[in-house]
């Protein structure tokens, strides 16, 4: 019976998005349904997490087709954790967008599409079938295309063209990789493939499939040579949408990389080396990109790229500690990046701009809010004891263990660059004496908002800041969780046994 817990978060999001369609023109009702529904979604994800924590991996075979033939849904510790984080980020952004988006944008089914996006993310984490993963990825990108173009401003459309093209290309490459792998192994089930792939004699073609998967997920997670679509598009939609994109869309690519390269393409030295080189270049190029930007959201966009590098580095080193670090960093990054983009939206509401030269003096006006906003930024840098610090310790120890000193240098360099960027941001946005700029006429400034709306904007940020603080101060629990996830990932027999009990 408890197996069904696996499908509840998934079905609940689908149910929500369909219900929201019936309230198409009634924005107030949609807001209430979305916020309350997201809160229930968090409850369901907590139930799933608790169930997996207590009883181990849950598996549901769709329509009771036995494992390699039907589609399996697998809730192991990693998937359950990410589903929980997705629902928490979803709740925060749902409440935030109810207050920060203007009604004109909400009128065209925003909340419905938003829940479809969460549905796609949840499905991508839970599925145990590569073609089904492709379908979830498509659901994610179709919803994200709608969200990124909603409103149809000039900058948005221009960003959307680039976003669309690269993501469509990534899907085609993903499909090509699936075709090659199916031709070789004759199966689509991840657990089954984990058994079949080591037995394939044509290693050259296996490498080709692995590289194709790497490129497809690399585009989605914005790693070094493939990231140009991200800074060109992420600052164009409203910040509520950018928050869910920045927090979760690139991380689902990282999740897929972790899953594929720890389960299916395991003993591959070449691949590990490629991953390490990519990680180093991503860390450096993302960090340097962030240095030169003068727009708050563009800075955060480049920081997303930079910090993807940490997780890829962990995956590339492939020791137990490194993978644990990557998992911890993934957990930390989802919370912090979502929060940062919501903060950029708050700055926009306060000042009416996101450009450094038009900003300044927020600390003087709102000292308490500013202190709240500095916490996620500090945990982004990794100032002890906040959440970014602990996984970096794992990375540094792991890089000594594997003697990969270039990774060590890149990790330290990227952390330092992040510190410089955040310091610069703090000085420009919060401390600097602002120049006099004419106020925009038809713009709802933060000061003029009603108290409920202000709370709706601040509470989600406060909530995610609280989660960040917990990740930092409760690091022992999170490290324990990461080690358990790593144990499950490194020991693939566990996953295979859960899905294919008769094998």
């Amino acid at each position, binding site marked *: 019976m408890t197996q069904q817990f696996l499908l509840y978060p998934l079905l609940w999001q689908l149910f929500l998005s369909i219900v929201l369609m019936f309230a198409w023109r009634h924005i107030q009702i949609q807001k209430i349904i979305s916020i309350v529904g997201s809160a229930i979604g968090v409850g369901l994800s907590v139930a799933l997490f608790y169930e997996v924590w207590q009883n181990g991996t849950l598996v549901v075979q769709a329509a009771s087709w036995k494992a390699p033939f039907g589609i399996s849904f697998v809730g192991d510790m990693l998937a359950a954790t990410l589903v929980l984080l997705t629902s928490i980020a979803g709740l925060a952004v749902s409440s935030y967008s109810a207050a920060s988006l203007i009604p004109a944008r909400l009128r065209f089914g925003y909340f419905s599409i938003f829940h479809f996006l969460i549905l796609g993310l949840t499905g991508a984490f839970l599925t145990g079938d590569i*073609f089904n993963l*492709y*379908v979830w990825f*498509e659901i994610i*990108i*179709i919803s994200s*295309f709608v969200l990124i*173009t909603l409103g*149809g*401003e*000039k*900058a948005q*459309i*221009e*960003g*959307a*063209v*680039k976003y*669309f*093209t690269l993501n*469509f*290309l990534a*899907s*085609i490459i993903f*499909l*090509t990789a*699936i*075709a*090659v792998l*199916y*031709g070789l192994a*004759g199966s*689509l089930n991840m657990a089954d493939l984990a058994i079949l792939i080591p037995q394939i004699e044509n290693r050259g073609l296996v490498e080709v499939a692995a590289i194709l998967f790497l490129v497809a997920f690399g585009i989605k997670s914005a790693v070094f040579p493939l990231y140009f679509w991200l800074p*060109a598009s992420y*600052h*164009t939609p409203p910040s509520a949408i950018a928050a869910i994109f920045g927090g979760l869309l690139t991380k689902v690519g990282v999740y897929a990389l972790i899953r594929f390269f720890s389960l299916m393409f395991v003993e591959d030295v070449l691949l590990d080396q490629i991953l390490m080189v990519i990680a180093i270049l991503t860390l450096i190029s993302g960090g340097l990109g962030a240095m030169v*930007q*003068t*727009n708050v959201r*563009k800075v955060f966009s480049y920081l997303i790229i930079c910090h993807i590098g940490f997780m890829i580095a962990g995956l590339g080193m492939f020791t137990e500690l490194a993978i644990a670090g990557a998992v911890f960093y993934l957990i930390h990054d989802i919370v912090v990046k979502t929060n940062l983009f919501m903060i950029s939206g708050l700055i926009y509401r306060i000042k009416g701009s996101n*450009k450094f030269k038009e900003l300044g003096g927020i600390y003087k006006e709102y000292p308490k809010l500013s202190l709240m906003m500095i916490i996620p930024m500090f945990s982004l840098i990794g100032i002890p004891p906040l959440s970014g610090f602990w996984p970096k310790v794992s990375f540094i120890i792991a890089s000594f263990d594997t003697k990969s000193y270039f990774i060590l240098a890149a990790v330290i360099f990227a952390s330092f660059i992040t510190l410089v960027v955040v310091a610069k941001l703090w000085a420009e946005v919060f401390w600097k004496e602002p120049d006099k700029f004419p106020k925009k006429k038809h713009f709802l400034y933060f000061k003029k908002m009603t108290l409920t709306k202000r709370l709706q904007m601040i509470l989600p940020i406060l909530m995610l800041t609280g989660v960040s603080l917990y990740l930092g101060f409760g690091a022992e629990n999170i490290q324990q969780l990461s080690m358990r996830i790593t144990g499950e990932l490194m020991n693939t027999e566990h996953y295979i046994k859960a899905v294919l009990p008769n094998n």
Partner: protein
Amino acid sequence: MEFLLAIMTGVLYAAGLYMMLRRSLVKLIIGLIIIGNGANLLIFLLGRITKGAPPIIPGDTKFFADIYADPVPQALILTAIVISFGLQSFAIILVKRAYQVVKTDDLDEMNTIEEEV
């Protein structure tokens, strides 16, 4: 037959990529459509082509005695076609909107957001 299909797949991929590298938005869409068809054909080809052997178990036996055409690639292609059809129609509308808003179909001129910095 397989040889011809392999060549065909290669041509479709190459043509699609070439069209995607052009600056015109309309050619970009055509490129995406062509490369999508190439991917579908590849799935079909790599699922092994079997002629005249439908995957139906004869009434008097309980399992396949002979080789049969694999139905899975066809199901995959069907799904992929439906999905890419949706994406393509979205792309066409997006390009139309982009042309209306930006007044150009040249990708190089769609850079107002970069200039702001």
